[in-house]
């Protein structure tokens, strides 16, 4: 390579952990005992030592990592794409053929992590060498690059040509086998670092990631950063933690309860729309339907949040509360949600409206909050902000969750809904699987009029499902 400026230090190494991992794999592949079987490969008249076949590489990967052949082929292909293994016979393309095609391991000098980014000067010398050695071996894009570099670093062009000639002269003194190997190594390096147009560059990064290293260094050196960390640690040391066994058991019960409701785990009836091209599942489970499915009604019993998040469930719950004369609790909670997630400009008006309707003495729909929370809330109302009703909202939420919700689940109303709800029949598999069912389009939500929050007035949202 050029005797020019030394390559930049291996800073990118830390940022690209996958390169280090690939290097470890490649090094263990070259292990004399445990590695891939090495053999000498005959190329026309020259004998190249330490070559491996594509098939052996795939087999080694399959055995070492206990993976399927498909995955091993993919992993091998990735190693070749990054230039860690190069083909001896088809040097133009970095592709892994899982047969007798010979490959060799790239020398660490040319590893992506050691010599990156590639220098323009080096590329110019490489192209000049190719051009001098055999006129007309430069492929189109290489010719373009060569011309472009010629204009760009015209001032150093004498150096480029001189270096190129020197390197060619030095190469002539080597054995033919070594010359071939070095040529392949260099070519692979440049295929990775200067891919032909159209081929994806494996070295491309998202913008901004290059700045990560520098900004990281910058931000950790400040005193206030450490002060923040210390404060956080002090607070964290005081928090209560739950035993792992309790937390992990919770996952088991959650997954077990929800498993039958998970279409990707247990399938869905009548059919998964993406597989059958039939949107019946979505029609049956639209946000507002007259007849919710059995699974859906079951879900209302899993948690209070599930019940509230489903418009049909919420409407039925509102009905139930109405019968118990505590419907104002849910309406109050809904109004508080509107405040919390509403526009900033609406905050004063909404706070006032909620106060007038639910909290003021003698209000039309007065909610029963304990005196301490009421006092605190009224205090806060002097300077209204979007979180001013949080305490009251939480109190009412817990009241509904601990009291009204369990009674709802035990009520005849809920039991009746559960009994009425049906299980859809599975769609019969099509006789001619290649005939595609027409895929129905659906109106975009952006076209529909703004949906109104389901209110206490009337029963569950009328009408059939809207997809």
């Amino acid at each position: 390579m050029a005797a020019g400026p030394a390559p930049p230090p291996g800073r990118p190494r830390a940022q690209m952990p996958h390169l280090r991992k690939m290097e470890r794999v490649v090094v263990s592949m070259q292990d004399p005992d445990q590695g891939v079987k090495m053999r000498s490969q005959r190329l026309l008249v020259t004998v190249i030592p330490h070559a491996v076949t594509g098939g052996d590489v795939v087999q080694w990967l399959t055995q070492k990592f206990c993976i399927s052949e498909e995955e091993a082929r993919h992993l091998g292909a990735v190693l070749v794409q990054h230039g860690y293994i190069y083909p001896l016979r088809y040097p133009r393309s970095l592709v892994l053929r899982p047969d007798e095609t010979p490959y060799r391991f790239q020398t660490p000098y040319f590893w992506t992590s050691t010599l990156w980014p590639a220098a323009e000067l080096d590329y110019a010398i490489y192209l000049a060498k190719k051009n001098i050695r055999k006129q007309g071996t430069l492929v189109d894009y290489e010719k373009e690059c060569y011309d472009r570099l010629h204009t760009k670093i015209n001032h150093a062009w004498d150096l480029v040509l001189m270096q190129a000639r020197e390197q060619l002269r030095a190469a002539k003194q080597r054995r033919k086998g070594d010359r071939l190997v070095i040529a392949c190594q260099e070519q692979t390096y440049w295929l990775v670092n200067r891919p032909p147009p159209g081929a994806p560059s494996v070295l491309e990064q998202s913008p901004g990631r290059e700045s990560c290293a520098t900004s990281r260094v910058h931000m950790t050196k400040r005193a206030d950063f450490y002060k923040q960390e210390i404060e956080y640690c002090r607070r964290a040391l005081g928090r209560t933690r739950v035993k792992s066994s309790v937390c992990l058991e919770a996952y088991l019960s959650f997954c077990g309860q929800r498993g039958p409701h998970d279409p990707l785990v247990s399938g869905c009836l009548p059919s998964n729309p993406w597989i059958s091209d039939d949107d019946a599942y979505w029609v049956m489970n639209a946000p507002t339907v007259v007849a919710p499915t059995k699974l859906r009604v079951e879900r209302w019993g899993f948690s209070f949040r599930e019940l509230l998040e489903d418009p049909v469930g919420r409407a039925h719950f509102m009905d139930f509360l109405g019968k118990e004369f505590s419907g104002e609790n849910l309406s109050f909670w809904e109004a508080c949600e509107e405040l919390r997630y509403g526009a900033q400009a609406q905050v004063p008006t909404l706070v006032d409206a909620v106060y007038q309707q639910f909290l003021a003495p003698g209000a039309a729909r007065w909610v029963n909050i304990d005196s301490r929370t009421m006092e605190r809330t009224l205090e806060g109302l002097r300077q209204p902000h979007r979180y001013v009703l949080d305490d009251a909202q939480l109190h009412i939420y817990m009241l509904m969750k601990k009291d009204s919700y369990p009674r709802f689940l035990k009520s005849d109303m809920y039991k009746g809904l559960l009994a009425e709800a049906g299980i859809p029949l599975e769609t019969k598999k099509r006789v001619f699987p290649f005939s595609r069912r027409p895929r129905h389009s659906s109106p975009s939500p952006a076209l529909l009029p703004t949906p109104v929050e389901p209110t206490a007035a009337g029963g569950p949202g009328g009408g059939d499902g809207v997809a």
Partner: protein
Amino acid sequence: MCDQTFLANVFGSCDKCFKQRALRPVFKKSQQLSYCSTCAEIMATEALHENETLASLKSEAESLKGKLEEERAKLHDVELHQVAERVEALGQFVMKTRRTLKGHGNKVLCMDWCKDKRRIVSSSQDGKVIVWDSFTTNKEHAVTMPCTWVMACAYAPSGCAIACGGLDNKCSVYPLTFDKNENMAAKKKSVAMHTNYLSACSFTNSDMQILTASGDGTCALWDVESGQLLQSFHGHGADVLCLDLAPSETGNTFVSGGCDKKAMVWDMRSGQCVQAFETHESDINSVRYYPSGDAFASGSDDATCRLYDLRADREVAIYSKESIIFGASSVDFSLSGRLLFAGYNDYTINVWDVLKGSRVSILFGHENRVSTLRVSPDGTAFCSGSWDHTLRVWA
């Protein structure tokens, strides 16, 4: 550079003690002042003192972190895969690409589902943001942003608007309109302003608030209508790359992950960091809550996905395999939380059994790195976007 090569003998009043002395130029936090020689000496020793406190702060922080780890370890009495031994293993998984969405002219960087379970919005490197009905694969809307690398996009809960942003350091909201005479770009609203690229954005429970994460190391909550900053979240030591809102009942927290290898849980109301986890060995590209809200998963450049429990306050599972070398760019849970789908930079998607910690399946198909992955709102499928210019819906 040249103005520092000679020392002019200036005589005047010192900027610190205001006495009439011979002055020397002194640089404090890139501001040039003129101090007399005595004050300059004092300043030099002060700087030394500052360095000492920095070192002592650092060691104090380290020792507290160590103590915190000890406390966390005390309540760790069992591993997840041990508890999961009695759970039935999952059957063989056959997931295929059911839809391929072609239309982007460059790398797809981000996507989000609409609540109607079939529409999606996706953004790409060339500045194009497209809204698709992925069931029919029709494109419904397209907008060209004035910047490239649109790294974040989100669908509003009502389905009437989308938000997107990237190298323009802003998050803009576009109302979706079907009026042929209206240009979507005309009604664009600029909501968030950061000092570096926008890496992630998400609407909260309504169309009127947006949460953003940026390369400037902060997250922020904005009011869409006025563009007002409602709350900002400082604490990450480097670029913030991802965020996810908690599905909890009281709806007050969110988690973010960044280049500083930390995942931090924030209280939206106070702006404070409630919990932080630092066990990854490299940048965290993606975070997603477990459906119950008690835990979250993260995907990182160190080729692992990890599960962190919020009540136990620790990492409880690592999803990794020796043959997986490339970083995970995005993760998401299935509806029941039993499966974890992760898209990787080696063009594959791995499906993990969350409870047992084993890999269930590996999906091939993309021809370049998978940059984004989301499960649909009703869990019937998941969509992956890739640098190969396409999006795929799998089921």
